[in-house]
Protein backbone atom coordinates (compact mmCIF):
# COMPACT_ATOMS: atom_id res chain seq x y z
CA UNK A 1 0.00 0.00 0.00
CA UNK A 2 1.12 3.57 -0.65
CA UNK A 3 1.24 5.73 2.46
CA UNK A 4 1.91 9.38 3.06
CA UNK A 5 2.59 10.56 6.56
CA UNK A 6 1.76 14.00 7.95
CA UNK A 7 3.68 15.01 11.07
CA UNK A 8 2.16 17.88 13.07
CA UNK A 9 4.22 17.72 16.26
CA UNK A 10 7.65 19.06 17.19
CA UNK A 11 10.24 16.56 18.43
CA UNK A 12 10.20 16.24 22.24
CA UNK A 13 7.04 18.37 22.61
CA UNK A 14 4.39 16.09 21.19
CA UNK A 15 4.56 12.37 20.82
CA UNK A 16 3.32 12.80 17.25
CA UNK A 17 6.79 12.89 15.80
CA UNK A 18 8.12 9.72 17.42
CA UNK A 19 4.87 7.84 16.80
CA UNK A 20 5.00 8.87 13.15
CA UNK A 21 8.63 7.75 12.93
CA UNK A 22 7.83 4.31 14.39
CA UNK A 23 4.77 3.97 12.15
CA UNK A 24 6.83 4.84 9.07
CA UNK A 25 9.50 2.28 10.02
CA UNK A 26 6.85 -0.37 10.59
CA UNK A 27 5.11 0.38 7.31
CA UNK A 28 8.41 0.07 5.42
CA UNK A 29 9.27 -3.17 7.27
CA UNK A 30 5.94 -4.59 6.13
CA UNK A 31 6.79 -3.79 2.53
CA UNK A 32 4.58 -0.72 2.11
CA UNK A 33 5.68 2.30 0.14
CA UNK A 34 6.02 5.79 1.60
CA UNK A 35 5.07 8.36 -1.04
CA UNK A 36 6.00 11.36 1.05
CA UNK A 37 6.58 12.58 4.58
CA UNK A 38 5.03 16.00 5.08
CA UNK A 39 6.12 18.01 8.12
CA UNK A 40 3.43 20.59 8.88
CA UNK A 41 3.18 23.31 11.58
CA UNK A 42 5.31 22.42 14.66
CA UNK A 43 6.32 19.28 12.77
CA UNK A 44 8.66 21.47 10.71
CA UNK A 45 11.09 21.44 13.65
CA UNK A 46 11.87 17.79 12.90
CA UNK A 47 13.87 19.11 9.95
CA UNK A 48 16.18 21.22 12.10
CA UNK A 49 19.90 20.57 11.90
CA UNK A 50 20.47 22.59 15.07
CA UNK A 51 18.93 20.28 17.69
CA UNK A 52 21.36 19.04 20.33
CA UNK A 53 19.61 16.51 22.58
CA UNK A 54 21.48 15.13 25.60
CA UNK A 55 23.32 11.82 25.00
CA UNK A 56 20.84 9.78 27.00
CA UNK A 57 17.85 10.95 24.93
CA UNK A 58 17.05 9.99 21.37
CA UNK A 59 17.88 12.34 18.55
CA UNK A 60 14.51 12.47 16.81
CA UNK A 61 15.51 14.66 13.84
CA UNK A 62 18.60 12.48 13.43
CA UNK A 63 16.46 9.31 13.36
CA UNK A 64 14.20 10.87 10.72
CA UNK A 65 17.23 11.82 8.69
CA UNK A 66 18.68 8.31 8.85
CA UNK A 67 15.37 6.75 7.85
CA UNK A 68 14.91 9.20 4.97
CA UNK A 69 18.41 8.48 3.72
CA UNK A 70 18.17 4.71 4.07
CA UNK A 71 14.91 4.43 2.16
CA UNK A 72 15.34 7.50 -0.06
CA UNK A 73 12.03 8.91 1.14
CA UNK A 74 10.69 12.22 -0.16
CA UNK A 75 10.58 14.38 2.98
CA UNK A 76 8.99 17.81 2.63
CA UNK A 77 8.86 20.51 5.27
CA UNK A 78 6.00 23.00 4.81
CA UNK A 79 7.61 26.28 3.72
CA UNK A 80 5.32 28.62 5.64
CA UNK A 81 5.64 26.53 8.84
CA UNK A 82 9.40 26.18 8.47
CA UNK A 83 10.21 29.85 7.88
CA UNK A 84 8.34 30.90 11.01
CA UNK A 85 10.20 28.31 13.08
CA UNK A 86 13.68 29.07 11.85
CA UNK A 87 14.05 26.06 9.57
CA UNK A 88 15.63 27.42 6.42
CA UNK A 89 17.70 25.94 3.62
CA UNK A 90 20.65 27.59 1.93
CA UNK A 91 18.57 29.40 -0.71
CA UNK A 92 16.23 30.85 1.90
CA UNK A 93 19.04 31.80 4.26
CA UNK A 94 20.38 33.83 1.39
CA UNK A 95 17.00 35.22 0.36
CA UNK A 96 16.01 36.29 3.87
CA UNK A 97 19.46 37.52 4.88
CA UNK A 98 20.11 34.97 7.61
CA UNK A 99 23.65 33.91 8.33
CA UNK A 100 22.90 30.26 8.98
CA UNK A 101 21.04 27.46 7.26
CA UNK A 102 19.23 25.02 9.50
CA UNK A 103 17.57 22.40 7.31
CA UNK A 104 18.81 18.82 7.75
CA UNK A 105 20.20 17.25 4.59
CA UNK A 106 17.64 14.91 3.08
CA UNK A 107 14.68 17.20 3.82
CA UNK A 108 13.34 19.73 1.34
CA UNK A 109 11.20 22.83 1.81
CA UNK A 110 8.09 23.28 -0.30
CA UNK A 111 4.48 24.45 -0.24
CA UNK A 112 1.30 22.88 1.11
CA UNK A 113 0.56 21.88 -2.49
CA UNK A 114 2.98 19.00 -1.93
CA UNK A 115 0.62 17.62 0.71
CA UNK A 116 -2.31 17.80 -1.70
CA UNK A 117 -0.13 16.08 -4.31
CA UNK A 118 0.83 13.35 -1.83
CA UNK A 119 -2.84 12.76 -0.99
CA UNK A 120 -3.52 12.25 -4.70
CA UNK A 121 -0.81 9.62 -5.01
CA UNK A 122 -1.38 7.68 -1.80
CA UNK A 123 -3.81 4.97 -0.78
CA UNK A 124 -3.69 6.22 2.81
CA UNK A 125 -2.62 9.48 4.39
CA UNK A 126 -1.95 9.15 8.10
CA UNK A 127 -1.69 12.29 10.24
CA UNK A 128 0.10 12.35 13.59
CA UNK A 129 -1.28 15.29 15.50
CA UNK A 130 -0.84 14.70 19.23
Amino acid at each position, binding site marked *: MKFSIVIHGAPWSANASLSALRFTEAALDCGHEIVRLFFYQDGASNGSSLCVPPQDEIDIPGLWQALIKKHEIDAVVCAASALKRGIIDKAEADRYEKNVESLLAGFSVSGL*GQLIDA*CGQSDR*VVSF*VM
Partner: protein
Amino acid sequence: MPSSPQTHTAHSYLIIARSSPYGSHQARAALDLALTAAAFEQKVSIVFMDAGVMQLLKGQQTDAGEMKNIGKIITALKLYEVNRVMVHQESVDKHDLDPAGFVEAVEVVTSDDIKRLIAGADQVMVF
Protein backbone atom coordinates in the same frame (compact mmCIF):
# COMPACT_ATOMS: atom_id res chain seq x y z
CA MET B 1 5.32 28.13 -7.87
CA PRO B 2 8.03 25.62 -8.78
CA SER B 3 6.11 22.52 -7.82
CA SER B 4 2.47 22.07 -8.60
CA PRO B 5 0.63 18.91 -7.67
CA GLN B 6 0.41 16.26 -10.34
CA THR B 7 -2.89 14.97 -9.08
CA HIS B 8 -4.93 13.86 -12.04
CA THR B 9 -8.27 13.29 -10.40
CA ALA B 10 -9.77 15.48 -7.73
CA HIS B 11 -9.93 13.85 -4.33
CA SER B 12 -12.48 14.69 -1.69
CA TYR B 13 -11.24 16.16 1.56
CA LEU B 14 -13.13 16.48 4.80
CA ILE B 15 -11.46 18.88 7.17
CA ILE B 16 -12.73 18.78 10.74
CA ALA B 17 -11.95 21.96 12.64
CA ARG B 18 -12.31 21.23 16.35
CA SER B 19 -10.02 23.81 17.94
CA SER B 20 -10.89 27.23 19.31
CA PRO B 21 -9.76 30.09 17.07
CA TYR B 22 -6.93 31.56 19.13
CA GLY B 23 -5.87 28.93 21.67
CA SER B 24 -3.41 27.39 19.22
CA HIS B 25 -2.47 27.54 15.58
CA GLN B 26 -4.67 24.56 14.73
CA ALA B 27 -7.53 26.72 13.44
CA ARG B 28 -5.24 28.54 11.05
CA ALA B 29 -3.58 25.31 9.89
CA ALA B 30 -6.96 23.77 9.04
CA LEU B 31 -8.04 26.82 7.05
CA ASP B 32 -4.71 27.04 5.20
CA LEU B 33 -5.07 23.42 4.18
CA ALA B 34 -8.71 23.88 3.11
CA LEU B 35 -7.82 26.93 1.00
CA THR B 36 -4.79 25.27 -0.59
CA ALA B 37 -6.66 22.07 -1.44
CA ALA B 38 -9.49 24.12 -2.96
CA ALA B 39 -7.03 26.27 -4.91
CA PHE B 40 -5.67 23.04 -6.39
CA GLU B 41 -9.20 22.18 -7.48
CA GLN B 42 -9.84 19.40 -4.99
CA LYS B 43 -13.30 18.77 -3.60
CA VAL B 44 -13.12 20.21 -0.10
CA SER B 45 -15.61 20.21 2.75
CA ILE B 46 -14.97 21.68 6.17
CA VAL B 47 -16.99 21.13 9.29
CA PHE B 48 -16.62 23.16 12.46
CA MET B 49 -17.33 21.21 15.61
CA ASP B 50 -16.58 21.18 19.35
CA ALA B 51 -14.64 24.33 20.31
CA GLY B 52 -14.09 24.90 16.58
CA VAL B 53 -17.59 26.41 16.33
CA MET B 54 -16.18 29.53 17.99
CA GLN B 55 -14.08 30.16 14.88
CA LEU B 56 -17.33 31.15 13.19
CA LEU B 57 -18.29 33.93 15.58
CA LYS B 58 -18.77 37.40 14.20
CA GLY B 59 -16.85 40.32 15.67
CA GLN B 60 -13.49 38.65 16.36
CA GLN B 61 -11.10 41.40 17.33
CA THR B 62 -7.50 40.77 16.45
CA ASP B 63 -5.12 43.65 16.92
CA ALA B 64 -3.54 44.53 13.63
CA GLY B 65 -0.67 42.20 12.94
CA GLU B 66 -0.82 40.27 16.18
CA MET B 67 -2.82 37.32 14.90
CA LYS B 68 -4.59 36.52 11.69
CA ASN B 69 -8.33 37.02 12.01
CA ILE B 70 -9.82 33.54 11.73
CA GLY B 71 -13.33 34.89 11.07
CA LYS B 72 -12.08 36.91 8.11
CA ILE B 73 -10.21 33.95 6.64
CA ILE B 74 -13.37 31.83 6.92
CA THR B 75 -15.18 34.29 4.65
CA ALA B 76 -12.67 33.40 1.91
CA LEU B 77 -13.61 29.69 1.90
CA LYS B 78 -16.50 30.10 -0.54
CA LEU B 79 -14.43 32.35 -2.84
CA TYR B 80 -11.84 29.57 -3.03
CA GLU B 81 -14.68 27.22 -3.97
CA VAL B 82 -14.60 25.09 -0.86
CA ASN B 83 -17.63 22.94 -1.62
CA ARG B 84 -19.34 22.77 1.74
CA VAL B 85 -18.86 24.84 4.87
CA MET B 86 -20.69 23.20 7.75
CA VAL B 87 -21.19 23.44 11.47
CA HIS B 88 -22.09 20.66 13.88
CA GLN B 89 -25.53 21.19 15.39
CA GLU B 90 -24.79 19.59 18.77
CA SER B 91 -21.64 21.68 19.22
CA VAL B 92 -23.56 24.86 18.42
CA ASP B 93 -26.15 23.90 21.03
CA LYS B 94 -23.55 22.91 23.60
CA HIS B 95 -21.84 26.29 23.29
CA ASP B 96 -25.23 28.02 23.28
CA LEU B 97 -24.51 29.84 20.04
CA ASP B 98 -26.87 31.21 17.41
CA PRO B 99 -25.83 30.61 13.78
CA ALA B 100 -27.25 34.07 13.03
CA GLY B 101 -24.17 35.39 14.83
CA PHE B 102 -21.72 33.65 12.50
CA VAL B 103 -19.46 35.45 10.01
CA GLU B 104 -21.52 33.97 7.21
CA ALA B 105 -24.29 31.48 6.60
CA VAL B 106 -23.10 27.90 7.03
CA GLU B 107 -24.83 24.58 6.59
CA VAL B 108 -25.90 22.99 9.89
CA VAL B 109 -25.28 19.23 10.10
CA THR B 110 -25.88 16.50 12.69
CA SER B 111 -23.53 13.87 14.13
CA ASP B 112 -25.08 11.32 11.77
CA ASP B 113 -24.36 13.58 8.79
CA ILE B 114 -20.73 13.84 9.90
CA LYS B 115 -20.46 10.05 10.16
CA ARG B 116 -21.60 9.78 6.55
CA LEU B 117 -19.22 12.57 5.48
CA ILE B 118 -16.27 10.78 7.10
CA ALA B 119 -17.23 7.51 5.43
CA GLY B 120 -17.50 9.19 2.03
CA ALA B 121 -14.33 11.30 2.01
CA ASP B 122 -11.03 10.23 0.44
CA GLN B 123 -9.10 12.15 3.07
CA VAL B 124 -10.19 13.17 6.55
CA MET B 125 -8.01 15.62 8.42
CA VAL B 126 -8.70 16.69 11.95
CA PHE B 127 -7.34 19.89 13.47
